[in-house]
Every structure is written in C-alpha cells, then in structure tokens.
C-alpha cells in the first residue's frame, strides 16, 4: 500500500458510469444524461436485487402503536426484509414473523418473553444468526449476531400495503435492528459502486439504448447484447468466486443446522 502515489479510486459514483457511456458515444452534450442515469439506476437496482443480493442494516424505533413505517423512516431502498432483531441490554434478539399462522416452534411462555425483554432472564444463549456487516454510529459492526426467534408474543408482521412493520404488544417500543434486501441506490445523490461494476453498468446502458434504437440493425443490437452478457459474466464470476470462506460457511451451516443462505 502506498499513500505517496495517488491511485484511481476503488469506488466510483453512478455518474462516472454515465460519463463513461457518453465518452463511448462521443456525445458530450447533456441531452442523454437523465435517460442514461435512470437506466444506470435501474441496472444497479436489478443487479443488487436479483444477483448480488445487496443486504443492508437499519436501526429503527418502534412507535407507541408498535409500528415502524418505512416510508416515514426514509428507508426508500427497502425491497424485502431478511431479519428483524431487537436490542436488549446489548444483546440482539431476533423476532419471528406471524402472518396469522400458528407457528409450531419452540415457544416459551409469554411471561418469560416479557422477562427477556425486560432483561431479567435467558441471557445465557450463546448461539445466533449473523447480521450483514454495516456501519452504525461510525463503527463498523462486523460480527453482530441475533438470538433466535420463536418466543411467544414476540412476533412482527410486515404490512405490504402501508409499508409498515407491526409488532406485538409484548415487544417494548424501543430501537429494532432491521436487516433488509436493498436496491443499493441512495437517492441523496451519493450512490457509490465498486469499480468492478463500471463496465457492466456501461455496457448495460449501451444495450438499453441500442435495444430501443430503431435505426440499428438486429446485428448491431446483438453486438451490444453480446457485450452486455460478457460483462455480466465477468462480474458474476468476480462476485461469486468460490473461496475458502464460502466453503467454511457451507460447512458451518450444514453442521450447525443454522440459517442457510
């Protein structure tokens, strides 16, 4: 590592890809900028949702009605939840989903669940579910684990129509930890993507423009599509390179019967 000689950044903004696209086309006017940027946003969202499974973590506070509204909370990039946990005395407890179905799992009495959330019992569990690495309060939390769900009265339900989480009354109205599937797009204008994505995004914008360009022949369109597929393969091979960590994760999951990803 050298701090003396500046290197190109490992992470770039979305607008970098759009500029690269304009460079390819030799068109430096601002006429295509909005269109190309929207395509870039679509492409990154799609890749994050369907291929790379971009998981993020948010800390949210339950209101007096046991509800967290994601729209009000400003969680615009939310696609689907992965886990919901609640912090009690520095320990993270995962909550279960209850879509009006009786959950036949290990249950403990409601009174004991209340005790847990009051921090008076059952804090001796040592196993847990892993949360994706994330920043909170300026500190990178790499090893956060939540205790398993399945207690009585510790349920939550996601209300799709109103974009809200509804929590059971037994759960104290404190801060919860939500691990969720994200589009990866920050609409504050500062979406940062790894440099490995650049060629993929640029080729995808080209492909979109070519696809809807009536003046191009099928052969020319196919060329753009071919390049896009090649870039997609390169990126996927890079993202999903099988390494020792993947092997260990797999091995751990099968031995411990924990959560499987």
């Amino acid at each position, binding site marked *: 590592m050298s701090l003396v000689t500046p290197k190109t950044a490992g992470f770039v903004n979305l607008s970098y890809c759009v500029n690269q696209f304009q460079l390819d086309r030799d068109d430096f*006017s*601002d*006429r295509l*900028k*909005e269109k190309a*940027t*929207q395509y870039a*946003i679509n492409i990154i969202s799609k890749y994050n949702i369907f291929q790379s499974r971009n998981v993020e973590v948010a800390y949210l506070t339950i209101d007096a009605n046991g509800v967290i509204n994601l729209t009000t909370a400003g969680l615009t990039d939310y696609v689907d939840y992965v886990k919901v946990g609640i912090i009690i005395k520095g320990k993270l407890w995962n909550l279960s989903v209850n879509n009006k179905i009786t959950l036949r799992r290990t249950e403990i009495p409601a009174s004991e669940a209340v005790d847990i959330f009051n921090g008076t019992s059952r804090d001796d569990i040592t196993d847990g579910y892993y949360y994706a690495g994330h920043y909170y309060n300026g500190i990178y939390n790499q090893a956060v684990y939540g205790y398993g769900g399945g207690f009585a009265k510790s349920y939550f339900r996601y209300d799709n129509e109103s974009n809200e989480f509804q929590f059971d009354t037994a759960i104290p109205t404190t801060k919860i930890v939500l691990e969720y599937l994200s589009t990866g797009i920050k*609409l504050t*204008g500062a979406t940062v993507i790894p440099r490995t994505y650049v060629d993929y995004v640029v080729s995808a914008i080209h492909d979109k423009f070519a696809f809807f360009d009536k003046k191009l022949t099928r052969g020319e369109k196919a060329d753009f599509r071919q390049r896009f597929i090649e870039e997609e393969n390169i990126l996927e091979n890079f993202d999903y390179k099988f390494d020792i960590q993947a092997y260990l994760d797999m091995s751990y999951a099968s031995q411990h019967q924990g959560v499987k990803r």
Partner: protein
Amino acid sequence: MTKDGWVYLVQNFLGGGSAPSDIRKKYRKGIVSEYVGMSFNEAIVQIYLSTHDLDSLNSYVKVYATCAIATDTVWAKKYIAIPTTSSSKILQIPDNKAIRSVWLNTTTKTRCMYRKMDADQVYSALEVNTYLAEPRWDLLGERIYFSSHAGVSPYDVVTTATVKQIVPWSEFASDEDIQMPFESNNALFDSVVNKLRSMSPQDKIIDQNVVQPVTK
C-alpha cells in the same frame, strides 16, 4: 469575410455579365442579404445533419451573459426570452441543440440541463429526478423555461442567466466577420442564386399594395 462582403460578392455576380439574364441587375442589397441569410442558415443546419458535430459550428456561437429571468404567472415558472434579437430567433437543429448551454448566473455559474418539453411528468415519476439535482430548462415558443424541479429553488434569488447559442445569419452585424463553412462556399453561392431565380424581381410585381421586402 464580413457579412456585407458576402452580400457584395453576390451583388457583383448579379451585376456582371456571367449572371443569367433573368436575374441580372434586378435585386437590391436588402433582398440579396435576406437570401444569403436563408442559404447560410440552411447550410449550418445541413452541416450538423451530415456531421452531427456541434464543435464544427463553434465559430457561429454567441454568448449572451445577462438574460433577465422573469416569472410566468400562468405556469408559475421562471423563464428567460431567447436572447437573439433578430427576426429569426433560433436555428432548427434537432433537440434544440442550437442552444448549446444555459447557465444560471450564480457566483460559480450553475449549468442547467436540457429537458424535452413535457418530459417533466415522466421524469418526476422516476428516481433520476431525485438523483440529479441540476436545474433543467426547456424551450417553448420564444421562451426558455426553467423546470419547477426542486433543484431550482436554491437559485430563486438569481436574476440573470447566460445562454450560449449558435445564432442565425441575421444576428451578425453587417461589419462582423463571418467564417464561411469550409468547402461550402460554392454550394452556398449556388443556393443563393437558385433562391433568387425562383423569386419574381421586384419591378415585375404589379400590385403595389403587397408587403414589400425589407430595405436595409
């Protein structure tokens, strides 16, 4: 060559023996200038259509640095009038590219992005509207409207704007030097002559009540 120089060149040709007899010695300076202008504007647009290279037209760009921003009460939008003062306001280059750029005169000058008229409705429903904060402009008639996009509001206090525009022939002063499109001299000249031939010379117009060509 100056604008007048071009007009004299055509006039010399029309007055000389090599001009076809039907158009010889029949046109005044004002009329010749109008026709040179029409051919010139056509040539500029043709150059863009055949090359798609705006930079080759940079010698015809003028900068208008203090266009006053007004408010349209009907649309509740800010606008500036197209700064060109002559009769033909704008060259018809596709996507309104004759207007090269529009800037708000903030301390550092804020560049505005072109948006097709009525594209507001589509883009405001997409993420890109939140993602790109630049103010937008579109062209309606003789006015350049700034979009009602949220990005404009910090610039509410700005009173003037700058426009860079590829201007039509009529926008040049008569003693101003105009570069001729390279290799287009002959074509331009022929185009002027052809246009003049298809027009009745003035002394053949019987009805004296018709609107007369402008005399310069």
